[in-house]
């Protein structure tokens, strides 16, 4: 499932990140790394950007970038 499709308040595990290396490095700092848990916190009134939480860090990225992050629901 795409990360951008994650519903508000739901939690998932990051599987794969399909962004170029430069962008991936930037997301790395925020903890966007395969294997980490990600929670969708809230969306802007325009549906993009979307706020996510990983560990103690809340950040927002745009929908189109979030669509390139593959996640998987916790079983």
């Amino acid at each position, binding site marked *: 499932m795409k990360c951008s499709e994650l519903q508000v308040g739901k939690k998932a595990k990051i599987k794969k990140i399909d962004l170029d290396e430069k962008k991936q490095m930037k997301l790395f*700092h925020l903890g966007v790394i395969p294997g980490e848990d990600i929670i969708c916190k*809230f969306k802007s*009134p325009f549906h993009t*950007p979307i*706020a996510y939480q990983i*560990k*103690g860090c809340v950040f927002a*990225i745009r929908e189109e970038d979030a669509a390139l992050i593959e996640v998987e629901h916790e079983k």
Partner: protein
Amino acid sequence: MYSLIYQSPEEEVASDFVFLEKYDLAIVVADATNLERSMEIILEVLDVTDHVIVCLNLIDEARKRNILVDPQELMEKLQVPVIATSVKEKIGLQELIETMNKEYIWHPKEITHSPKIERYCNYMLPKLSTSKKGVAIKLLLDDKLEKKYELSSETQKILRFYRKYLTKMEIKESYHDYAKTINKDVIERKKEQEKREDKIWNTLFSNRWTSFPLMLLLLFGILWLTIYFSNIPSEFLFEFFQSLETPIYNLLSFLPSSLLDPLIYGGYRTLYWVVSVMLPPMLIFFPLFSLLEDYGLLPRIAFNLDAPFAKCGSCGKQSLTMCMGLGCNAVGVTGTRIMESKKMRLLSILTNVFMPCNGRFPAMIAIIGMFFVQNNTFLGSIYSALILSIIILGGILLTFLITKILSKVILKKEEPLFILELPSFRRPKILKTIYFAWKEKALHVLVRAIIVSFPAGLFIYFLANVSIEHISLLNYLQNFLEPFGQCLGLDGAIILAFILGFPANEIVIPMLLMIYSGGTMLVEYTSLESLKQIFLINGWTILTAVNFLILSLCHFPCATTMLTIKKETKSFGYTFLAFLLPTCLGILLAFLVNLLF
């Protein structure tokens, strides 16, 4: 700052310092509420120097949020002093100072890297005669360290190979993997308590029905408080300075009147006008704004406005620079550094002037108070704030429009990643915030206005009192500009005042009053209200006031801002464009308004 394996300019500066400079001790201040994120930089610093103290700040906040961090365990793992602190609650600060002064046998834990990096370090470290792996790793990042070591050509060859072979990402991952082994024993996140404040604000700010009304209300609220509470101190200051005028005049009466008159009627009068009209709004606006900033509301505004800005080729962070511009455009221009994309930075710099800064909106308030509503009543101050809000919204609209147009013209293909951090809300220390806002912001702006206003007052006095064939220089200038002013529904004096206000926008209205009164400002007035009479005598109508407001919003940035733009863009072309763009737009708008009404 999250890593010495840098990506941003500030990280590069920090990285260079840690690797290249000499220091006794490195203190890594980590956020205890989000230690996972700081762990990598802690390890990176440990990999460079032995002398490290780790400071776990915001420990009280972490406890509140049910995040258990174990400093003792972290100390075991790293073998360096770890101190839990809270600056707000004054926890651990004494301990930190004591630790800094203590003698230590520094022997921190060695970091194990990925096999690939270990192999590289095994090869490289003997050549560098150091045991710190970080030094070898820095050699991979850039060649700044290379000069320090005289590497043989063979070593250099191998270094080149590893630079290609080991990516930054792999180095980061290596630190990250090691950090993970520490994190799992040091940090325990129990069912995390989301702060109620965060929950309420986040809901309000992301809901489509409440977010925009809320933001508008905030804008209006700040402006209203500024208008309402600055009226009385303004009048008080005005009367106070005015009452000092005669005593000062008498005190200095030993001076010849050819010197004393310009000093008092030119310099002093302009000066006190600026101080009494500009100071109270500044003293109210800057702290209010700082409080909102410290509380953490601004990133939420950027979050909500990202989508519309994206449509115009920019991003939500532009709204942050606009907020700064509301305080001071020069600060707003410098503030564009928060944007990574060069193109978006340029767009923000060129449009920042459409946010009326603190040097301009008090003048707008004064004009609104004279021609549209009475400022000094409760209801009047509300109307006044409403009108000012509408003007600022107009500025925002222009910003969107011009950004959109410019983004089509400035062709730079860039697709940067938009990341906005949304830190949790933190109640600021009110008195401290007010103090710093006054000291760092208001005072700074005021001093600049004062420095400019006194000589400007003298200059105008000089212009008014030196005549050629019985017509003063001031009149020449005024008459020369008159036809142009008429086209815009204004007059020559107003145009001249705007031009003279180039060093600092604060002096536009006092300059105007000086010009109207023939350079002496010798007009009997008892209150700010009665200034209206001077304008009326000089043929002002509602239309003049409207056009004045338009031109206030849209004209060239002040001298300080222009210099800042030159510094930030490093281009005369763009600086010139920043001058031309709002000026032409203002002239066009005023011309159209004059034509239509």
